């Protein structure tokens, strides 16, 4: 028996595939918006924890409902990951991160931040954190039931404030430009926006641009602990190409790099590359594309 923990993202198609590959049709424990639970109940048997309050408060109910599952799974997203880790420790079962595949009783995953692939045989209950972009669940037959939590933690939302920055569906974009530390100032993003408009591309970034300097929202950074994308074109501008970043973009059909450092690792992982100053190439490329 397997269960998938869900909070606020119904795109668990990749997690369902892993559960099925391990031999069982999963059920869902939903500890988030009722609407997400109802959406999934069209294709899976869903138990929704009927309570207000954030997922952080509902962990005791999730732990109780997942107490007997042989395999507990979650997509590698923050709220779901927190619940999965709590279930694993409460039950004292191993938790395997970065799972990419499964067959029979074996699980494939990466470790050392994406540098090493391992295949492991599982005997006994286990928790799996599944990598990958959100994926819709194929239509099927499902059901919906509510569970009243016996106990919760005292965590309450006091206030919320929405980001001023626009939300972008990176996973659904067919062309993505990634910007890195080669960009010297926030104002220079205007030049990238012009190129993106010409290419019809979404703008993403490496981790330091989102978390170090905060020029772009956190959900725009690509990599092993950020977004994983597979567009038709990934254009890396001023990104050196450390493995932690590349893990997030290796599924791209074409990878193109612009970087002034000829020794940047990205040049070993690109289809086409320009060794040059991005401040000269980006405006020139925008102009060249406009001339067509």
């Amino acid at each position: 028996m397997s269960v998938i923990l869900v909070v606020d993202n119904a795109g668990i198609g990749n997690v369902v595939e892993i559960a099925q590959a391990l031999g069982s049709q999963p059920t869902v424990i939903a500890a988030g918006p009722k609407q997400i639970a109802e959406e999934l109940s069209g294709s899976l048997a869903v138990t929704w924890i009927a309570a207000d309050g954030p997922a952080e408060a509902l962990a005791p109910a999730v732990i109780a409902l997942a107490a007997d599952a042989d395999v507990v799974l979650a997509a590698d997203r923050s709220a779901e990951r927190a619940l999965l880790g709590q279930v694993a420790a409460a039950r004292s079962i191993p938790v395997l991160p970065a799972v990419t595949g499964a067959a029979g009783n074996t699980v494939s995953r990466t470790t050392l931040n994406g540098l090493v692939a391992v295949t492991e045989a599982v005997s006994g209950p286990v928790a799996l954190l599944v990598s990958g972009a959100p994926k819709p669940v194929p239509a099927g037959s499902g059901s919906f039931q509510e569970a009243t939590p016996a106990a919760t933690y005292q965590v309450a939302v006091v206030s919320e404030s929405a980001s001023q920055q626009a939300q972008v569906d990176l996973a659904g974009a067919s062309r993505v430009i990634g910007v890195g530390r080669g960009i010297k100032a926030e104002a220079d993003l205007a030049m990238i926006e012009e190129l993106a408009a010409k290419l019809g591309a979404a703008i993403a970034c490496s981790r330091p641009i989102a978390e170090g300097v905060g020029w772009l929202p956190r959900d725009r950074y690509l990599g092993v602990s950020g977004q994983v994308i597979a567009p038709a074109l990934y254009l890396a501008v001023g990104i050196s190409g450390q493995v932690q970043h590349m893990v997030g973009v290796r599924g791209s059909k074409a990878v193109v790099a612009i970087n002034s450092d000829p020794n940047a690792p990205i040049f070993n992982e690109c289809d086409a590359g320009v060794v040059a100053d991005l401040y000269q190439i980006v405006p020139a490329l925008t102009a060249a594309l406009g001339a067509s």
Partner: protein
Amino acid sequence: MSVVVAYKWAASPNDASIAPDGSADWSRAKAAISEYDPVAIQVARDFADAAQAELIGISIGAPDVAGSLAKKAALSRGLDKAVLVADESLAGAGATLTGKVIAAAVNQIGGVELVITGDSSVDIGAHLVSATIAGALGWPVIPDALAVAGKPGELEVTQVTASGTRTLRVTGPAVVAVTADAAQPKIPGMKEILGAGKKPSEELPLAGLGVVVPTGVDTQASSRVEPPPRAKQLITAGDPTEAAAELAAWLRANV
């Protein structure tokens, strides 16, 4: 009253040499306080100062976590005391075991109502240990915290969400995992480094913590992850306009 910050002593896998069979040679990689953990220590130090609490660092792992280099590196960043569980069997411990050992150390210390952790470790990067500590303690975990205010047992945590930020009120003990940019960690100066040698540290024997090691996972195969092959066609025209025209032509032909 004590606040605990959990930190890892680890080297970056980028500095290790990975063989085709996936085995890692760490001989040229230097261990340090894991990438994001100085941020956690800084947030915890600032919180402990405001709450007039003692700040205890907990680290678990292979014997080198209790070595003088590791202890000084951690204590010089502002801990009042370090509590270490150093055991050969904890080398490469998974998230469940790590969380349970840290939780057992927290219980041993006693009277702790707040454990702060960093975002993720430099070597594994799974973002799981804050949750496994919480699961083992029976406490809530608040991930993605930008700021922690209030006092132990009555916290106000500012959390990053997909659509912005929100403030959570947490009553009772809790584990809080801070974002990589929740604080700007201070670089320890000579005074802090010298002072670190005089601060107390304590080693807890693993056997005395009564932690049962989770089992049931056996490695069958491992290999170095090879990037997918790419054409690596370099455009070398010296003139930016020419190079851009070549790249534009490449894009039209290939994308």
